[in-house]
């Protein structure tokens, strides 16, 4: 299984080189037997960029999966996981290169269903079946919007070939919101994100890695494809993307901080990162109208963040999987101190945390740097900037900053409670897994560092793809602003190298000075109490309590328990349950109403044959009357 993934990634190298470096377009078309559509595949720069993401992550995931699934009880689907994993990769690949609406929808369904079987991997547990069900409903609701969009456009254009749909046949303003909902359900925008926190903990960790790392990006790819097909980008598209981005970023990160389960935290963090990408797209669309240099930088940032997020999020899910596999739980209030028993996983997780928080010199910083720079450029008065763009930049900066700070808090919580301190529950000690699991996540972590230190190169890479999305296309001088930013980024790499050097000197100095002195181990300060127990530690829940308190009106958590009372208090307890605003106030009532209506309609299904004969008769009479009208 890993071998086939590696082989297919290697096979992608040559075409990717031609497309991304050479700027050529690979096109292939054969007739097929269906009455509609055609088998038309094409790899242009935009597809190539996402295929690159897929071919980086998919072999690592497959390799990790072999180790992850070894020596665990086989379930029926368990033995099929490899099959569905490959089908998911293949489905994503087909989605990315389809250049025909029908073929696209077919591939989209293959991809979605493969992911469904991954979510249902451990279907003996009830919550996993529930997660699979939520995923199935979410993905099909999204797909319904996509069907609608493609048929609307196809009916107008008379063909489903994307070339024929170019310019969206004058229906751009109708197609765009449909695309946002349809693709947004896959990408997990706030409000459409409900399946993410359910499906990711249920799926095997390498499945979550591929889903969160690559599959959700097909949603972003879809929106970019629609943008690339549109002749021009109305201003409100930019605002819609920006507002959705701010909502997803803030909503995702606030939910992420308060989670107890490691994989749920990572899932909400994906929502947050989709928000960051959307903010980039929003500024990109707004910027393109007023100031092309802003537009191209923000687009480049969004694209680059797609790549970066794939790398670190896939790695984080792998590390989380190793923790869950060896320590037996993903509950952060029960874990602790794993840094000592699984040092290699701990190291990889630390690097990936730093990347996901967007801290220099790791890769997360590069994408955010681009989006921030674009936002700053749009605030600073330029020759062509307008009040709208400036306010857009203003909104982007403030929300990116808050999201960044809270994301740091989420991952401080994740790393600090899982890998540092003492184990909070008996037996949850963990051990480093075999190298077939450590190598994939470590190589992703190393890639994160490399892309961060060589940020200038990745800025240029993403920039050339961004010019392909631009409605104005790749023209001379379009890339100039990105070249400028990538030169500025050289300073970041330079400072990082110098600081690494200074850090090593100080570390050496510290070791040197301590060599001849008394360095001993002892208990930590506990107000004179020298026998602290693991149960006295701060837990993940206590760590996120201030956020919980500050955002309680948004989170709408159910809090319960009993406080200690009296001079000799008995046992006390506290529990909090965050089911989510959307569950409770939107989807719950919505599906409740649907069920009620459907329940009423069910009464027609009486089951008695005589009644059905009556229905047939009544229908005949109605048709007769209607035709005699």
């Amino acid at each position, binding site marked *: 299984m890993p071998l086939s993934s590696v082989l297919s990634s290697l096979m992608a190298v040559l075409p990717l080189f031609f497309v991304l470096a050479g700027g050529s377009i690979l096109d292939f078309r054969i007739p097929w037997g269906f009455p509609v559509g055609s088998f038309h595949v094409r790899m242009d720069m935009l597809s190539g960029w996402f295929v690159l993401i897929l071919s980086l992550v998919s072999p690592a995931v497959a390799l990790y999966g072999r180790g992850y699934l070894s020596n665990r009880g086989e379930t029926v689907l368990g033995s099929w996981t490899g099959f569905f994993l490959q089908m998911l990769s293949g489905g994503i690949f087909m989605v990315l290169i389809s250049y025909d609406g029908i073929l696209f929808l077919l591939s989209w369904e293959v991809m979605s269903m493969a992911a469904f079987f991954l979510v249902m991997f451990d279907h003996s547990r009830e919550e996993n079946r529930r997660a699979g069900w939520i995923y199935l409903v979410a993905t099909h609701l999204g797909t319904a919007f996509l069907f609608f969009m493609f048929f609307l456009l196809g009916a107008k254009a008379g063909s489903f070939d994307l070339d024929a749909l170019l310019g969206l046949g004058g229906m751009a303003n109708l197609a765009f919101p449909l695309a946002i909902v349809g693709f947004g359900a896959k990408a997990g925008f706030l409000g459409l994100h409900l399946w993410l926190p359910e499906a990711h903990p249920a799926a095997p960790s390498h499945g979550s890695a591929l889903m969160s790392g690559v599959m959700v990006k097909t949603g972003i790819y879809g929106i970019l494809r629609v943008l690339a097909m549109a002749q021009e980008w109305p201003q409100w598209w930019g605002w819609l993307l920006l507002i959705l981005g701010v909502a997803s970023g803030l909503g995702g990160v606030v939910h992420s901080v308060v989670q107890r389960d490691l994989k749920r935290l990572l899932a909400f963090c994906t929502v947050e990162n989709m928000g960051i990408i959307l903010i980039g797209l929003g500024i990109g669309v707004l910027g393109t109208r007023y100031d092309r240099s802003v537009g191209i930088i923000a687009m480049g940032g969004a694209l680059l963040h797609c790549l970066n997020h794939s790398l670190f999020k896939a790695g984080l899910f792998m590390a989380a999987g190793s923790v869950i596999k060896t320590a037996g739980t993903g509950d952060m209030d029960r874990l602790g101190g794993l840094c000592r028993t699984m040092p290699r996983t701990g190291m990889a997780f630390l690097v990936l945390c730093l990347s996901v928080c967007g801290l220099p010199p790791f890769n997360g910083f590069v994408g955010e740097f681009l989006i921030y720079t674009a936002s700053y450029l749009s605030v600073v008065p330029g020759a062509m900037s307008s009040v709208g763009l400036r306010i857009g930049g203003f909104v982007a900066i403030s929300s990116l900053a808050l999201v960044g700070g809270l994301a740091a808090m989420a991952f401080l919580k994740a790393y600090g409670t899982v890998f540092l301190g003492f184990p909070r529950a008996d037996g949850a000690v963990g051990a480093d897994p075999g190298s077939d699991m450590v190598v994939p996540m470590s190589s992703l972590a190393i890639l994160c560092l490399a892309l961060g230190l060589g940020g200038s190169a990745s800025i240029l890479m993403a920039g050339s793809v961004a010019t392909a999305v631009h409605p104005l296309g790749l023209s001379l001088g379009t890339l100039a602003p990105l070249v*400028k930013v990538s030169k500025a980024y050289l300073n970041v790499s330079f400072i990082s190298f110098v600081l690494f050097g200074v850090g090593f000197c100080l570390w050496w100095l510290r070791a040197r000075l301590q060599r001849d002195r008394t360095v001993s181990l002892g208990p930590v300060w506990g107000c004179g109490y020298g026998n602290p127990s693991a149960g006295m530690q701060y837990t993940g829940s206590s760590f996120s309590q201030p956020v919980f308190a*500050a955002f309680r009106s948004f989170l709408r958590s159910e809090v319960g328990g009993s406080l200690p009372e009296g001079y000799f208090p008995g046992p006390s307890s506290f529990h909090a349950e965050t089911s989510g605003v959307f569950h409770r106030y939107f989807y719950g009532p919505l599906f409740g109403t649907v069920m009620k209506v459907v329940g009423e309609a069910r009464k027609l299904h009486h089951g008695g044959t005589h009644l059905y004969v009556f229905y047939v008769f009544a229908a005949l009479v109605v048709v007769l009357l209607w035709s005699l009208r």
Partner: protein
Amino acid sequence: MMDRLFALVGVAVALVAAPFLKTVINRTKAAVAGRQGPPLLLPYRSLVRLMSKGAVYGSQTTWIFRAGPVVSLVATMGALCLVPFAGRPALVHFEGDILLMAYLMGVGRFFTVLAAMDTGSSFEGMGADREAFFSALTEPSLLLGVAGLGAITGSLSLSGIYGKLGGSAFLGSNLPALIFILAAFVIVYLAENSRIPVDDPTTHLELTMIHEVMVLDHCGIDLAFIEYGGALKLWTMGLLVSGLVFPGGTGSLWLDVLLSLCCLMGFQVAVGLVESSTARLKMGRVPLLLAVAFVMSTLWIMWVVR
């Protein structure tokens, strides 16, 4: 070339003189309280004393606990190289350098917090938690304030912004915007450097501490690194704030340096006065103060964007 040399000298001066800022604050507080105050060179003496000590480490701590102080000191040094002094360009400057500065301080904070959580102590967990949350709330004010300065001066690098502010051509209609940004920056400064009313560096009750409780278990060389890093942060952020009051621009290098240093010291005196005259806020009210800072950092948009 001369600019580079000047900036290098500026960094060197900061590396030497930063601990003295603590003396200024403490002497101010002493003067207000009618005490004699600590010796002028006390911060240096304690640094030397700490550097010559051995260490006791918590039995459960890992390399992260030992690396925390080094990383945060190095990150602050990096931030120091990006901040302009006396209206002259900083050692390194490029468009968007404020991001690197803010995020480098973020790296330092990340490792300080991790080091605190490495001990497994509840006290340090508390401090870590508060530090992480409050700094998440201050970051938007800093970045948005700088965006405002950028919008006023039309420049994107800190050196460009502070260099142009000195021209005083931007006063007048933009003055209210600048004042609000200054107010926001002062609150950011107090929060980031763990001063009253956000945090009390002299408190003796672990339950109410933020920064100090995170470093309870650091000692010897590690504590020296933390203290020194804290002093450098006072200097770095101090330049950002005091540069708004006097950014330079008299034309004479020596006069600029002298006035900038006076502003920096004067600002520390002001911090000392704030510390003497206010009590620290209840922990639950700190987010409100930071929200006030955020609002003030947004207000420039009324004057600048029309």
